[in-house]
């Protein structure tokens, strides 16, 4: 009997520990010495040190080196997110380079952890697509290699790291999505959600201390309620009030919760809403998207190349592809607004049909700096549970 009980106790400890020990990233990253000079491109020039295609002898040399590597390790790219499925297929079709997309539903922090933990293996990520917090932190801890694509000058200065450690790739605005069959009076502003007619209907896509879109939703609500990019508190208070009034459903909204009718009004990025609408239509849900006029908040994701990429040339070619007119238009077709969209529009190379399909935006959107996002996340860490509990 004693033995069995000791067994139970041990199991309990194992259970608790396995949960807490889920990801201990810091400890084993220090010892491996940077194995960046990988075999494939070692011949003529070291692709891992190239900061432009010209460093390698031009685009043709880059393409040749990338083809020689033959593989690109991407990470955390959901096929249905910003048209990534089509983008990856197009890249493979054009260059014959196979793409491994590890952990498609991973988060930005998962991507940074993968760079640290898988360093030196051939499974390590070559390129990442991360939120601003992870881009800044990854650049500061030396995880990224600087690189400037051919169209570097077309990315606005405020949207890139001056050395090219990271650069905005695509973004959008916080939008309200709703099931037009269930919501008879569609909301057009965030403030109008505070109404008994929307009882048990309004949701975010997650916890604002974890999900970027949720924190952005809180900031948008702050803008709509007398706050500012520097003061997210009114946004947290707004959701607190919605919760008290029974309007806010604190369920992490997914297509499944939308389809089941649990979250008929969902606040999320417009490009995710728009692509969800296509999927939901097939399931009989009439999903509409409106960008609220009172909380016009925009945000971008970022590209970066891993400093220890096992396929350094393929990684660089991937960026060149993404920032070509083809790559930018593929994002646009996924209803995401690519970073070089203003330049494309000026040059007349933007896909007109895709442009027309974007949700309408009236007014001047506001973009938060990383410091403002950090301040907002701190407020959320200390105040979200208190306000909505």
């Amino acid at each position, binding site marked *: 009997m004693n033995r069995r009980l000791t067994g139970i106790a041990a199991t309990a400890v194992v259970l608790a520990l396995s*949960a807490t020990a889920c990801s*201990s990233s810091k400890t084993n990253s220090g010892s491996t010495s940077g194995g960046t000079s990988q075999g494939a491109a070692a011949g003529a020039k070291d692709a891992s040190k190239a900061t432009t295609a010209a460093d390698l002898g031009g685009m043709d040399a880059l393409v040749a080196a990338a083809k020689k590597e033959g593989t690109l390790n991407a990470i955390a790219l959901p096929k249905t997110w910003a048209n990534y499925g089509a983008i990856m297929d197009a890249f493979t079709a054009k260059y014959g380079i196979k793409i491994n997309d590890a952990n498609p539903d991973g988060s930005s922090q998962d991507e940074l952890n993968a760079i640290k933990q898988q360093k030196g293996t051939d499974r390590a990520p070559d390129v990442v697509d991360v939120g601003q*917090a992870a881009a800044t*932190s990854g650049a500061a801890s030396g995880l990224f290699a600087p690189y400037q694509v051919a169209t570097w000058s077309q990315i606005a200065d405020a949207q890139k790291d001056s050395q090219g450690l990271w650069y905005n790739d695509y973004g959008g605005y916080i939008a309200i999505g709703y099931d037009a069959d269930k919501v008879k009076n569609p909301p057009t502003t965030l403030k109008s959600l505070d109404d008994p007619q929307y009882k048990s209907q309004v949701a975010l896509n997650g916890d604002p201390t974890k999900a*970027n879109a949720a924190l952005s939703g809180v900031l948008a609500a702050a803008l709509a309620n007398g706050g500012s990019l520097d003061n997210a508190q009114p946004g947290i208070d707004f959701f607190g009030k919605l919760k008290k009034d029974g309007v806010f459903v604190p369920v992490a909204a997914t297509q499944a919760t939308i389809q089941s009718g649990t979250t008929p009004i969902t606040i999320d990025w417009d490009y995710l809403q728009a692509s969800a609408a296509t999927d939901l239509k097939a399931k009989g849900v009439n999903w509409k998207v409106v960008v609220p006029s009172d909380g016009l908040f925009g945000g971008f994701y970022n590209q970066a190349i891993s400093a220890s990429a096992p396929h350094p040339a393929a990684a660089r070619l991937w960026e060149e592809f993404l920032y070509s007119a083809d790559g930018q238009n593929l994002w646009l077709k996924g209803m995401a607004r690519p970073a070089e969209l203003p330049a494309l529009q000026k040059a007349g190379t933007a896909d007109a049909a895709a442009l027309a399909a974007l949700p309408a935006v009236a007014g001047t959107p506001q973009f938060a700096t990383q410091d403002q996002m950090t301040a907002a996340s701190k407020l959320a860490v200390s105040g979200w549970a208190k306000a*909505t509990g």
Partner: protein
Amino acid sequence: MTASAPADVPAGVGEPTPAAAASPLRPAGPRAGRLGRLGRARRTRPADLLGLAPFAAYVAVFLGAPAYAVITAAFKDDAGHATLSNVTTTLKDPYRHAFTVSIELSVLSAVLGAVLGLALAIAVSGARRDGFVHRAVTTASGVLAYFGGLPLAFVFLATLGPQGLVTKWLNSAGYNLTQHGFVLWNMAGLVLVYLYFQIPLMLLVIFPALDGLRPQWEEAARSLGASRRQYWLRVGGPLLAPPFLGALLLLFANAFAAYATAYALSTGSVPLVPIQIGSVMSGNVLAGQENIGNALGLWMIVVVGLVVVAYTLLQRRTARWLR
């Protein structure tokens, strides 16, 4: 067996272990027949340790190494320098509050799960062991005990959520759940959801102990004039107490570490420690705070460690009768 025991012990291996010293060879109550051989300690031979090696290696790799990593990282800052700030920060709000809520949820769901699970187990143990009820309940428990995460959250949303099937039935029957204060995303709601896997888990771990209670012992006690109440108070209860407490501990740890279900159902509005660890370890918003997560992990280990110590003390007390 009893007489030959000393012969098993090779000379000069060393002093008897404390367990051996504390465990007299005399028959221990009604269980001696079944468990006497197991319960009696024997000196360990070096060859026996060889059999332990795979388990020890397993524990070292999957428990020792991660625990070491968590504990050491908890005392470092993001640049790798030694600091106490992670462990002190995580003692303050909002983390302190999250520990209170996490412990509250774990205790509530463990106690309710243990009591209800035991009741169910007692009810089922009355059924024929090879009969349909017995087999159906144990098989179902084996499945349900490990059903968790996002699917579980969704199952509850689809039944008891604002648009859930049961919610709608009750609505059409004139009973509005929400108006009566029921939602899935508060403490009571989460306890209800957790019971979904806690009760079957309790049943699974307590069943062998219940099966070990022989009907003859109750018959013997009754024939000696004990009432049913006296039997449970003096014989059945004390026999079941140690496994019950052990199962309670397991349920506590199970709930304490659960994460995905609570996240999907509350998006942080019910602050739980695993959710906070998730935010710093694998989120899109906070960066460079992994060591806060490690410090939270360290405190979780401490909490479970304290529970294990309390359990051991309690168990020693309740098991005294058995020696």
